[in-house]
């Protein structure tokens, strides 16, 4: 008898608790904050291929939550300036609090792509080749911003009075079109540029590295040949362009096959973008699924954790065709991380022209 009562009590409590909680949901406790648009009288100089007024419009759009279906999420909600426009969680939350499928990539030094510039290979799997087309994808994505009908987006922007002036200044007309929105967002995101790290200044002979940073550089470039993939020295902007999608042996069986999902070719399974290491100290957690919380964990993967996947990159294999174990010592890890910290561009992450124009007094 006691048993019966116990079981019934547990089940009833769970069900009743659910209904009570559902009833409580109908009231919001959140209070509005009055923001104002803080834009300079003369547009900032974005040094890009678009007029500054177009990039300024893109900046407002980038930080405006009205671009999501329920006015809750902006591009800048997941791409945070202080984190080199990445996010500090494995998977960012979209408009309905569903988790994104991959870790948020930083935005910096992004190629425009297109017929004149060649494929841009954007996203973790390189599925987008042209930045103005790519910027609309998260807006329309059913997890991220949910605005599946981009014509509805245009109609919504028409109802927001502050865009009249911005579109007038950017395009000479208050008329709003989908193409103008995507161009403005591409103008802003492509203008987010980093070239003022200490390592940049070192490469130009304007700064020096400490002893431990220099040791880290030697380990990175020579002993462990990290530079063989990450090209921090060959490519000034730290953004690889060739062979930039590889399998680094994260798993024997990948739950997300990366490039393989796009091409349908089993030889591409488990291949993901080699990310830029620029601002890498700010972009944790790491990998396409944010599995590594720290750079130490990343180095430990290369030290002892590479899995023997059939598509494992040849640079991570021994002559016997097995995964390499770099056996990076604790002291060497400290040195490599010290070197990676020289890739941080403090001017980019504090530059007001890249910050949210919606300010609170």
């Amino acid at each position, binding site marked *: 008898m006691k*048993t*019966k009562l*116990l*079981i*019934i009590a*547990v*089940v*009833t409590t*769970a*069900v009743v*608790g*659910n209904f009570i*909680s*559902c009833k*409580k*949901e*109908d009231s*919001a*406790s*959140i*209070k*509005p*904050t*009055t*923001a*104002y*648009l803080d834009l300079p009288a003369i547009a900032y100089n974005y040094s890009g291929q678009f007029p500054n007024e177009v990039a300024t419009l893109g900046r407002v759009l980038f*930080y*405006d*939550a009205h671009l999501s*279906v*329920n*006015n*809750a*999420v902006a591009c800048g*909600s997941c791409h945070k300036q202080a984190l080199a426009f990445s996010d500090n969680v*494995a*998977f960012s*939350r979209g*408009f*309905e*609090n569903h*988790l994104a499928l991959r870790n948020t990539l930083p935005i910096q030094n992004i190629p425009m792509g297109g017929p004149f510039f060649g494929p841009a290979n954007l996203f973790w799997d390189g599925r987008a080749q042209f930045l103005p087309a790519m910027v609309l994808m998260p807006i329309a994505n*059913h997890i991220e911003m*949910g605005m*599946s009908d981009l014509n509805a987006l245009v109609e919504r922007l028409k*109802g*927001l*009075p*502050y865009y009249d002036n911005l579109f007038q200044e950017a395009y000479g007309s208050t008329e709003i079109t989908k193409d103008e929105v995507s161009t403005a967002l591409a103008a802003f995101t492509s203008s987010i540029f980093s070239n003022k790290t200490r390592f940049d200044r070192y490469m130009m002979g304007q700064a020096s590295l400490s002893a431990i940073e220099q040791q880290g550089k030697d380990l990175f470039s020579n002993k462990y040949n990290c530079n063989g993939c990450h090209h921090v020295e060959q490519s000034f902007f730290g953004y690889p362009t060739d062979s930039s999608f590889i399998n680094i042996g*994260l*798993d*024997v*069986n990948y*739950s997300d096959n990366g490039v393989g999902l796009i091409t349908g070719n089993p030889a591409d399974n488990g291949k993901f973008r080699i990310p830029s290491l620029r601002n890498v100290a700010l972009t944790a957690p790491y990998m396409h*699924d944010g*599995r*590594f919380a720290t750079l130490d964990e990343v180095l430990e993967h290369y030290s002892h954790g590479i899995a023997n996947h059939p598509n494992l990159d040849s640079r991570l294999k021994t002559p016997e065709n097995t995964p390499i174990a770099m056996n990076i010592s604790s002291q060497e890890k400290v040195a490599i991380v010290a070197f990676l910290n020289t890739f941080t561009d403090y001017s980019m992450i504090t530059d007001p022209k890249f910050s949210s124009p*919606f300010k*609170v007094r």
Partner: protein
Amino acid sequence: MRLKLFCGAMLSAIAFFTTAQTPVDKPEKFNHYGGVQINQLLKQIINLNNNNAPITNPYLLTYTISTVKGGWNLHMGIGYDYKRILDKNTPANHESKISDLNYRVGVGQTVMFGKKFEAGYGLDYTAEHKVDKTFSTSVTNFGNGIDSSATTSTSKTTSKGFGAQFTLSFHISDRVLIGTETTYYYADATQKLNVLITETVTNDFNNTTIVTTTNTNLETETSSFTFSVPVAIFLLLKF
């Protein structure tokens, strides 16, 4: 309504089977097990492949009634999760309240091998009801006036499915079992999203106020096969 029917059926089943217990002086026909499955906790302790994919059923309260002879069983489980998320991200502050109820019911059989181990298999019906209410509000002073918007979005996701379940348990004692399970479920989900936006624009220049209300309904359907690797752990107490 379906939820109420399910709960009613579950309670009736419990009442039926527990009423079927025989007096103490006769041999027991049924064994009763109550337990808890702590999927998320175990995943945090033992992460087999470093995969960060979220677990949607963080825990499950379970009840199993099984025949002493043959090991045939009726099992059921229910889990509930409630989250409140507050995001003050200027200009849009938003607050979400999410409730997630999942339950399953199924039949199966367990077989002892050795004195301590027990293997089981079964077929489950599984369902999930998730409600996400998000309130978003923004007020923007654009110089010549103020734009303010208040948005309420309600997303209701109902998922139903079925699939196979396999378990492996270890008898710590006569009355306490610890075990793990793997499942392979097919599920159909229907998501209904309603977004109600009230936009108010006050223009100081011509002293006008315009209020616009838009109500949008979206519905999406998805199907999926989900294989859960054996990272769930459960603790069972035999009554």
